[in-house]
């Protein structure tokens, strides 16, 4: 069985399905950017077309595109969605993450030092 590059919990898949339906868009695209206190943070945007080098992941009936620059950082990540009164957000449980900001938004992986700009934020 091919190992999932990215897996989604049911909660995440339901949320993605809802968002794509509401906005009538084809995909969500996952990326990373260098920022924050500890290296990288996740980005999520709508996308209508698969870019030539994007990785397409299909899980739980939804399609997520992964930006090629992000791929090596997010491989094996599980995407979840938490929703309480104070916040609702996608969270990423990333086995590659070697450290994490207290807020959980930024993370480091072994190769993030190459991606991170000097001077951080």
């Amino acid at each position: 069985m091919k190992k999932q590059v990215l897996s989604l919990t049911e909660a995440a898949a339901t949320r993605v399905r809802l968002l794509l339906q509401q906005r009538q868009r084809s995909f969500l695209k996952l990326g990373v950017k260098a920022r924050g206190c500890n290296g990288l943070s996740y980005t999520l945007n709508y996308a209508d077309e698969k870019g030539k080098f994007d990785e397409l992941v299909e899980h739980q009936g939804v399609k997520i595109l992964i930006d090629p620059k992000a791929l090596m950082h997010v491989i094996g990540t599980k995407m979840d969605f938490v929703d309480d009164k104070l916040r609702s957000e996608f969270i990423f449980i990333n086995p590659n993450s070697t450290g994490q900001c207290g807020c959980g938004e930024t993370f480091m992986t072994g190769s993030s030092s190459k991606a991170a700009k000097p001077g951080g934020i």
Partner: protein
Amino acid sequence: MTTSSRSLIQRFAPYFSARIRQNSRLLSSSSAVQEAQLSSPESTSPSADAVHMTDSCVRRMKELQADEASDKLLRLSIEAGGCSGFQYNFSLDDKANDDDRIFEQDGVKLVVDSISLDFVKGATVDYVEELIRSAFQVSANPSALGGCGCKSSFMAK
């Protein structure tokens, strides 16, 4: 003195005297503030220390209150941690405690305990809605020195 330099002085005199008046006003007002602080240590200068809420924050609180039987307060507190020393914590509370400061805006109440208040004086609380998350956030904090890019952790001055 020559006539040309006298007329220069005449031209600039009003400007100089206005500046002198302004400076003496500033000096006297700052000493008045010091006097006020010495005489009443409990009171703090109101608007500079207030924690503000954006319209988005107020709107979100009203939405939350619509679902609740009783009016909830938004509590902002500080805890040690995060990547920059301190981090913000938001919670919903039923009532304020004796040592809380309450900031009310448009019928919505934000409470901050007295210890946390020192770290968030003059800050602004926002409710940010993005694809990846919707959450309460401290969008600006003049009491903080610097902070985490994710805006949940900061260094105190």
